[in-house]
C-alpha cells in the first residue's frame, strides 16, 4: 500500500493524521458549508449583514418552505424527474442491446461502430445545438418534456453503449458459445444468459445517467423557454433572478436541486463509483 499505512507509524503521526482529517474535510467543503449555513438563516440576518457569522436564529423550515410556496420550484423538480427517468430507461435499454451486439458478434464494422458511439459521447454539445433545436421546433418537441428526454436518451446511449460493450466483453465468452451449441436462439442468449449477468452494469449506468441528466443545464436552456418544461437546474437560475438579494432562499433552492443526485450517490455509492472509475484499473 502506498503511502505507508499510518497504523505502522508512530502514535504522533497516527493521531495527528486522524485529527487533521476532519479539519481538511471542513476546509474542502467550506463553500458548501457556508451556503448551507446561509440557507438556514433568517432574512433578518441577511439584511443586517450577518451572512458569514453564526446565524442569530435558525429558519431552516421557513426558508425551504418559502422556496416551494414562493416559486415554481416544485414544478421544476417534478419536470426534472419526468425528464431523467425516461432517459435512464431508454438509454440503458438501447445500450444493453447495442453493447451486446458489439461485444459478442465478430463482424467487420463492430469496432468502427463502437468508436462511433465513443466519439459521439465526447463531442461538444454546441455542434448539435442548432440542428437539434431546429428539429425540435419543427416536430413540436420544443419546450416539452419529451423533447428533452428523447435527446438525452439518444446522447447518453453513446456513453452507455461504451460501458455495456466493455462490460459484456469482459464476461466469459464460453457461456454464449455453449448456449449456441445447444441451439439456443440469439435473443434468448441475450435475455437469459447475458442480461442477468450485466445487472451490476445496469445499476451503475442508471445512477450515473440519472446524475448526469439531472445536472444538465445546457440543453435545458436550448430546448425550453417556459416554466412548464424547465428542469430544476434551469429553474434555480430563474429563481436566482427572482430572489435577488434573498441569498437565504437562493441557497436553499440550490441545495434542494442537489438533493436527488446526492441521495442517489449515497444510496448507490458502490455502483456509482464502479461506474465512474470503469477503466481506471486494468
Amino acid at each position, binding site marked *: 500500500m502506498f503511502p505507508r499505512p499510518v497504523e505502522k507509524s508512530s502514535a504522533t503521526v497516527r493521531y495527528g493524521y486522524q485529527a487533521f482529517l476532519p479539519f481538511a474535510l471542513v476546509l474542502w467543503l467550506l463553500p458548501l458549508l457556508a451556503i448551507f449555513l446561509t440557507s438556514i438563516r433568517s432574512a433578518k440576518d441577511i439584511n443586517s449583514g450577518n451572512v458569514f457569522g453564526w446565524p442569530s436564529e435558525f429558519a431552516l423550515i421557513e426558508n425551504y418552505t418559502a422556496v416551494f410556496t414562493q416559486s415554481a420550484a416544485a414544478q421544476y423538480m417534478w419536470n426534472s424527474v419526468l425528464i431523467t427517468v425516461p432517459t435512464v430507461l431508454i438509454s440503458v435499454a438501447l445500450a444493453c442491446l447495442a453493447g451486446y451486439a458489439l461485444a*459478442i458478434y465478430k463482424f467487420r464494422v463492430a469496432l468502427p461502430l463502437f468508436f462511433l458511439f*465513443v466519439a459521439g459521447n465526447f463531442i461538444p454539445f454546441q455542434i*448539435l445545438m442548432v440542428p437539434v433545436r431546429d428539429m425540435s421546433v419543427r416536430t413540436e418537441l420544443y419546450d416539452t418534456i419529451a423533447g428533452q428526454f428523447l435527446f438525452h436518451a439518444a446522447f447518453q446511449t453513446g456513453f452507455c453503449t461504451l460501458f455495456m460493450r466493455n462490460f459484456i466483453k469482459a464476461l466469459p465468452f464460453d457461456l454464449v458459445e455453449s448456449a449456441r451449441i445447444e441451439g439456443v436462439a440469439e435473443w434468448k442468449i441475450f435475455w437469459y444468459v447475458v442480461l442477468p449477468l450485466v445487472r451490476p452494469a445496469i445499476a451503475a449506468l442508471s445512477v450515473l445517467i440519472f446524475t448526469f441528466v439531472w445536472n444538465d443545464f445546457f440543453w435545458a436552456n436550448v430546448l425550453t423557454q417556459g416554466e412548464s418544461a424547465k428542469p430544476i437546474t434551469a429553474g*434555480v437560475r430563474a429563481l436566482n433572478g427572482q430572489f435577488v438579494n434573498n441569498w437565504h432562499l437562493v441557497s436553499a433552492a440550490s441545495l434542494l436541486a442537489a438533493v436527488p443526485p446526492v441521495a442517489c450517490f449515497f444510496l448507490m455509492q458502490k455502483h456509482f463509483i464502479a461506474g465512474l472509475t470503469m477503466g481506471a484499473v486494468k
Partner: protein
Amino acid sequence: MTHAVVPDTTTADRPGWLHRNKLAVAPWIFLIPALIFFAIYVVIPIFQSLWLSLYEWNGLYTADGESTATWVGFQNYVKLWDDPNFWTSLRNNVAWLILYMLAVPLGLFIALFLNQTVTGMRFYKSMFFFPFVISQVVVGLIFGWFYNPDFGVVGTVWKALFCEETTNILGNVTFACSRPAPDILSSPEWATYGIIAAGLWPQIAYCMILYLTGLNNVSADQIEAARLDGAKGWKMLWYVVVPQLKPATFIAIVVTVIGALRSFDMIAIMTQGGPFGSTNVLSFYMYEVAISEYGERYGYGSSVATVLFGIMLIFISYFLWQMYQDEKGLR
C-alpha cells in the same frame, strides 16, 4: 434491414437464408434501435452543423416551409477571424485547458492523502467526492456567492485581514480597509481564473476518485520490493506507483480535457461571459451568438461550434487511437 424476425430454432431441419446467416444478421437487429436514435440526434446533426456554418440563417422558415437560409460560403469564418470576442474565447479555452489539468495532480495528491484505512475512512472518501455529484449550476452559485466582496467568504476573510472596524458618531459600523476587497468576478483580468478555480473543485474530486480506485489496485508486492530496495517518498511515487496508475491517469486526462472544453454551466451562471466578454469560451460564445436577444444567428453560431468541434476532434482522435491500441492488445 427488413429482416426484423428473430431466427427461430424450430426450423433447423430446413435451414433458410436467415437461419444460415443468423450470426451475420443478429447483431444488426440488436444494434438498429440504438443506431437510428444515435444517428438522428447525434451523427446527422454534426454534419448539419458543419453545413449550416456556410449559411446565414435566422432560424426562420417561409410560410410554405422553406428555410430562409442563404449561402455565404466561408464568410462566417472570415468574420470569425476579425471577431475579437472569438479570439478572447479561444484564449480562455486554452487557459481552461491548461489550468484545468491541475485537477489531475491535485486529485492524485488528495487520493494519496486519503489512501489509508483508519476508521471512518469510507465516510471521508465519499465526502471528499461530494462536490462532483452536485450540479455545476449549484457549484457556480456557491462560488459566485463565495467570491462576493461584500458578504461572501472572500470578502469576509479580506475584512478580517485588511480592514479595521470603526463605529462612527451615529453608531453605524463602517470598515476602513487598507486595500479594497477584490471583486474577482467583476474584474476582466481575474474573472476567468475565478471561474476555473471554481470548476476545479468538482474536477479534482473526480480525479481523486479515479486515483483512489487505481491505488487500490497497485501491486503490494512491487511496493514492498521497492521498499526493501530503499525507495521511498517521491522516488517511490514517481518510479513505482505512478507507472502503475497509468490507466487512471489516462481517464483522468480524458475527462479533464472534455470537462475543460465543455465548460458552459459555470460561465453562464457566474458571469454570462462578462465583464466585457472577458470570460467567454467558445462553448458559451457559440450559445450567445446563436440564440441571443438580438435575433438568432444560426450560421455564425455553427461556425463557432465547428471550430470548437475541430479542437475537440484532435483530442478525440488521440483518445480513440489509444483505445484502439488497447483493443489490439486484447486480441
